[in-house]
């Protein structure tokens, strides 16, 4: 009962946000939504299946650039197909999946941290292509992102739209699209994790040989989850491109991939809620520090020499958070919340979703 009330309340608050908060917060929120989608994807791979990936930023880049390429009208300097933008977005996600599939000979055979190092190749190779294939990607300067247009409804600033005396620009419109996409991603991932595939994935993570003996095609599952996770990455990339309105290659580097790993560890490995919580934490932290840098000690305003800039302070904080979580909070933020909720006297056993803690620590 409380659960439903809480969800309804949360949904209502999320719907009201664009009516009260300004562009800065909407943009921050949209970044967090994009991060949440990407984090769900990588949590399926790393958290639930135990496969480390450093290459997630690459799939975000594929999604973002594929969307731009499919939807942009071709010009003399830059290529494009000029497809309807809705179709372009779907195709972009598919292309990200195909890119993940092309990597499957490696993704299926390597495990754990080995795969992590192998996927560095995606990042560096990807950066190389982004900077050099100027006809496709615009090179160093990147490309402008066409506005999304779904069934005649434009997610841009024109035509003017005023809802309850609040002008609805690009960010306000995208806000609702973002909410819908996050919700869809969560529901789908939850379905995957709760059903047969989820159990197979967890078994592969906990004991590869046992999984194989019980008839789970280990390599096929690993490759499959890698494809699924890259499609999530692609979707996150499309949303990110729409919010940024410009794609630049530098953004999709090693640091972005590390951010995603930090998100899922901080939030909680192997669960959908954990990925979303971690994504919120990691993407809101730098923005909060930037906004309130005057009133926080030790953090200097951006651009002032000497002090720790908000972006750096945020990185140091969540780097430390990753270490702290693994040392003291196995299960991440989500595990912490569960622990608080399950404290006596209202001792309830969780009926749903046995999550990472349920596995035995003795199994290697």
């Amino acid at each position, binding site marked *: 009962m409380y659960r439903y009330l809480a969800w309804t309340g949360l949904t209502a608050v999320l719907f009201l946000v664009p009516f009260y908060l300004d562009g800065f917060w909407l943009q921050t929120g949209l970044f967090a939504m994009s991060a949440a989608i990407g984090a769900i994807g990588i949590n399926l791979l*790393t958290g639930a299946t*135990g*496969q*480390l990936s450093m290459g997630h930023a690459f799939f975000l880049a594929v999604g973002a650039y594929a969307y731009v390429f499919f939807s942009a009208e071709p010009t003399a300097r830059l290529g494009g197909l000029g497809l309807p933008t809705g179709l372009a977005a779907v195709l972009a996600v598919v292309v990200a999946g195909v890119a993940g599939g092309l990597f499957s*000979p*490696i993704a299926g*055979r*390597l495990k*754990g*941290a*080995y795969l*992590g*190092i*192998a996927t*560095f*190749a995606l990042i*560096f*190779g990807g*950066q*190389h*292509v982004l*900077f*050099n*294939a100027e006809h496709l990607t615009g090179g160093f300067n990147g490309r402008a992102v066409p506005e999304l247009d779904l069934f005649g409804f434009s997610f841009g600033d024109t035509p003017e739209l005023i809802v309850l005396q609040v002008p609805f620009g690009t960010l306000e419109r995208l806000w609702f699209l973002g909410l819908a996409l996050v919700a869809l991603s969560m529901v789908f991932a939850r379905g995957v994790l709760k059903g047969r595939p989820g159990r197979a994935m967890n078994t592969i*993570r*906990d004991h590869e*040989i046992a999984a194989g*003996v019980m008839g789970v095609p280990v390599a096929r599952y690993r490759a499959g989850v890698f494809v699924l996770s890259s499609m999530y990455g692609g979707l996150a990339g499309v949303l990110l491109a729409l919010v940024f309105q410009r794609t630049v290659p530098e953004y999709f580097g*090693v640091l972005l991939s*590390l951010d995603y*790993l*930090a998100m899922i*560890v901080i939030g909680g*490995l192997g669960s959908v809620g954990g990925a979303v919580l971690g994504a919120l934490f990691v993407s809101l932290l730098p923005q909060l520090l930037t906004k309130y840098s005057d009133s926080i000690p030790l953090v200097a305003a951006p651009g002032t020499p000497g002090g*720790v*800039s908000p972006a*750096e302070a945020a*990185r*140091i904080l*969540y*780097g*430390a*958070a*990753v*270490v702290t979580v*693994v*040392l003291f909070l*196995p299960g991440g933020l989500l595990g912490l919340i569960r622990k608080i909720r399950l404290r006596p006297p209202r001792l309830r056993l969780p009926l749903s979703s046995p999550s990472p803690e349920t*596995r*035995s*620590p*003795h*199994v*290697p």
Partner: protein
Amino acid sequence: MTTFVELLVNGISIGAVYALIALGFVVIFKATEVVNFAHASLLLAGGYLIARLWPLVGFWAALLIGVAAAALVAAAIEFLVIRRANVASHSVLAIVTIGVDIVITTELTRQIGTDVLAMGDPWGSQVVRFGGVTLAETRIVALVTAAALITAFLLAFKYTGWGVAMRAAAEDAETAALMGVRLGRVSMSAWAVAGGLAAVAALFLCVFPTPGLDRSTSLVALKAFPAAILGGLDSTTGALVGGLIIGVTESMMSGYQNDMAFLGRGIGDVAPFLVMLVILLIRPAGLFGTKELARV
């Protein structure tokens, strides 16, 4: 032909430096089964200290302090974090090292800012000529030093008590502990050795012809990861061969990039990773890695 020889020798020299990094990486993996993504930050820490201290205490003392400090930082990571992390999966331990890496690298790059720090080495930009082949003195010193360090390490690994303890612990930790090997010390010393090797590597990555230590140095260090994995994460021989393959590939691809303009600018930086992918496709455990077998 002279270009080819120059590129080859330079490649071998830089490869030997990568081998130093990869060797540390492999030692840590053998001793604690942790894939240490914080390795780049250890390297940056050592290099940074050398670059900052040489104007104060002279180059050789700075080098010594830098190596010792990197070893200390590495040992501290093992003692404070790795040993205390109570996790079932080694993937999670790898992510912890990523957290450590984020903290150290962010702080150091902040300290470095936009500066390019000279390393104050005595070799400067002098070159040596053999016939028509011109080689930088730094490259020769790097090659000799790396070869000496690697030989010393391999001998110690084979003949000293420490080496035997390390190999025993890697073979079967439980039995080794029962035989009186102190696992804590073994893994801590492994981390310390790796840190020291990384600091030496940092010196040679930042001397002539590179302009010096700057914020992108930790990215350069990432090229040692493919070196370690294509040789096989649990093989010291693999680390050496891997380092050389990566070094020579990079040097050749950068040297002849004008003849391969269709591949785009900066292909030399990507080539190591592409080579790694090709080798992993054929041998998923690396060239010399032990294929994992399990009894059920």
